[in-house]
């Protein structure tokens, strides 16, 4: 067991963890941060995407011990003071989700994408989300949502 201390969604936490424990397992099983989900075992799907020290990571691809001393933001910490993050708002506005399972990762990746590139083209959005799989939406409305959040959206129509 290894002692780790980190900040998750603004709260200081500390636990003894097995060295092999993945960050996503730590978030879900120890902290009850079940908003972050596991969709695969090969780091393809991106459902577990969170931010670690300001950068998006697939939390199935990071050991909990690697997050020691770090700052993690999950989907549960994205809204502030009850106000949805603009990307969350855009996903709802543009119907960028259906079953919602990929959504936490998709939103976290979109937030990171827009931090790096505030006015992405459609192609840049599509390439930027390539590591996140969605089976419901066909990506069309996810792309619209990111455009909308970046202030480039056309008026949303069905």
């Amino acid at each position, binding site marked *: 067991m290894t002692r780790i201390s980190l900040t998750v969604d603004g709260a200081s936490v500390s636990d003894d963890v097995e060295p092999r424990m993945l960050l996503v397992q730590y978030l879900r099983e120890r902290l009850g941060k079940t908003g972050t989900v596991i969709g695969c075992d090969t780091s393809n799907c991106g459902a577990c995407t969170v931010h670690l020290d300001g950068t998006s990571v697939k939390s199935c691809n990071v050991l909990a011990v690697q997050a020691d001393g770090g700052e993690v933001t999950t989907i549960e910490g994205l809204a502030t003071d009850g106000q949805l993050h603009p990307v969350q708002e855009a996903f*709802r506005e543009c119907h960028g989700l259906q079953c919602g399972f990929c959504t936490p990762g998709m939103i976290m990746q979109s937030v990171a994408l827009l931090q790096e590139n505030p006015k992405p083209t459609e192609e840049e959005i599509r390439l930027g989300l390539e590591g996140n799989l969605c089976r419901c939406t066909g*990506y069309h409305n996810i792309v619209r949502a990111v455009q909308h959040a970046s202030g480039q959206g056309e008026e949303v129509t*069905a």
Partner: protein
Amino acid sequence: MTATQERPTETREIGRDRRRKEDQRLITGRTRWTDNLQLPGMLHLAMVRSPFAHARIASIDTSAAKQSTNVVAVLTGADLAETQGACINAWAITTDQVTPAHPPLPADRVTFAGEAVAVVVARSAAEARDAAELVDVEYDELPAALDLKEAAADKVLAHPDLGTNKSAFWKFDSAEAGTGGNVDEAIEKARADGIVIEREYRQQRLIPAFMEPRSVVVDPTGEQITMWSATQIPHILRFALAATTGVPESKIRVIAPDVGGGFGGKLQQTPEEMVAFAVARRLGKPVKYTETRSESLMSAHHGRDQWQKLTLAATKDGTVTGLKVDLLADLGSYVAIVGGGVPVLGAFMFNAIYKFPAYQFNCQTVLTNKTWTDAYRGAGRPEATYAIERLMSELAAELDMDPLEVREKNWIKHEEFPFTTVAGLEYDSGNYEAATARAKELFGYDELRAEQKRRRDSGDTVQLGIGISTFTEMCGLAPSRVLGSLNYGAGGWEHASVRMLATGKVEVVTGASAHGQGHETAFSQIVADRLGVPFEDVEILHGDTQVSHKGLDTYGSRSLVVGGEALVLAADKVIEKAKPIAAHLLEASVDDLEFSGGRFSVRGTDQGMAITEIATAAFAAHNLPDGMEPTIDSEATYDPVNFNFPHGTHLCAMEVDTETGALRMRKYVCVDDIGNIINPLIVSGQVHGGLVQGIAQALWEEAVYDESGTLVTGSFVDYLLPTAADTISFDIDHTTSPSTTNSLGTKGVGEAGTIASTPAVVNAVVDAVRHLGVDDIRMPCTPERVWKAINGPGAGGSTEAAAMPHFDQSEPGQDSTEGAGA
């Protein structure tokens, strides 16, 4: 009492693009996936799975696993014996269907690679999985039936004790059914003086690949044993649990909490659910099992997997005179819950939107030593649509006609509805001309055809192809009598109840079980309009057999057209029950009351009362008419009178690099006619997602087994789900021919995109390179297959030869298009 006010029409909910009620939780991570659940003392399960496709289980040594720290139990099929129940097949498609017994954990023999043979129970999931590695199973490998065609010839038996791999043969013949002529005569005539198109198409095996891996939690500590499961079918699952374990149905509660997609893949009663149920009962403790993605791809049911031999007969002017279909359908190693019924769901759809005078459908279902197959989005209808829409384009090519023209020559004209087809179905409404005209306009059909010609003429290395799919489907499963006539084990009705709460809020309970479709939003819109209450005041409850005590769940694009209609009936009953109370309280005659905009008003006066006020009055029950039951709550069960027939015209432009075989989708337009639309935003999402799943079959996805029966596409590294970077934005629109068989005039939309898009894409790819001598490319159309098709006979080229024996065993290799003078 206040004066009656009509709600202005612009506040009508039906037709509004309401943002979804469900989203607030989902975008903030406040979710209830089954795997999120933790109960005190909960134990975790891991499965020990067979690496072999077919083997006898010689022995299972569990001693090392049992000694592991925090392992509570290790159980085999022999240990669980009859307590594990059985996985059921609900649809024997023939009365003599050969159906192998399907124990959740087989004790003596494994029948596909990935089948579970033992379960480890431990205090944590990680410890259970570690210990599963220590279970020592000795297998005696048996020859495996893997290739579908070889299995159909009984060369190797998937279940030696059954003596055959042939499970059932199902036939429909229009001459025998009295719905049309004799197809063999039509083909004979066409061969003498017309056109015969013969093809063999492969429907590759697909994996539904919902994003949420399946998970099940069972808590046996209450009076009812509660199962939470990532399932589409909580009601059917409860029935199957009770029917096969002997536990009374009333002692079982099944909850489908948030469910992360299904697409048919969670329309199943799974071995893992049965094992979790048995283990929880045995140990008296809550248990959880969550599969890994690899386990999901390997052992959750697959879809499609058919060979289709097709013969289309036509006159020289392009009028189709008959269609004959011979299918081989791979069931995998068991007949799953719907199983062989999937191709039968396609049997009525090969004739599609066309007026074929003669039709015959033959299907042989076959057992193999691969993962069992069952419903995957569209279930039977994508296969049928692919076949006919590819054939119609081939016919057009043969005639050197525009593929839309040959379709129009044969399709049912809008003034001919209702129309009884050669398969015996009555299509209630449709307008193929209108959808096609709109699609052509959006697509810029003529301009793209002109560009295609320019590129051909100039010998451009990047060629342009235009693909067409004018599809229809039957959905809204299903009229119970029809299901009965097909030997299906259940009905097709749906149930709803409407509870009028004392505070003026409305609770609606539906037997449909959403897993991403947005029922909460769309159903709220329907009820809000019907009862004249605010959208926000309607709460939709579903997916828990103790709340929604009656239902047949969600699949087959049925929730709206069957479940929605049950809602309407229940809401109308509420109004009827409220009416005498309103009359009593308003001191008026029932005959003088009108109900509109949520209020009863007395005709010719300004007196009125809201239905929510009547709900409060019924709750208080202080002043009701004599003998009146103090409630206006109502319920209804609706059995559809017919299937539902959405249709649409899909147009796809593909660019093919003839030097590399690389493909690029240039444009995709679809105009679907799904009748009246409740929520256009939700509909757009259903269409987009459906399109990509169908496009993925055309271009990327295939479940591949190696020669020993191991699934080599067992992870997302190898099973190619499309990403945002692989796909494009779509142009979608609608025409509207309301359904005449339900009061809302709606048609199903959940499967439409998937059913329609696959042939549109492949038609486009083939169209781009047809002038290079290509008439087919097997799916998925990978660059390699496209390149090989262009550069000579091989994986992609002609498929005529394979189809020939279907037509005439004695003359293999005969030119199938001789009638055209080709």
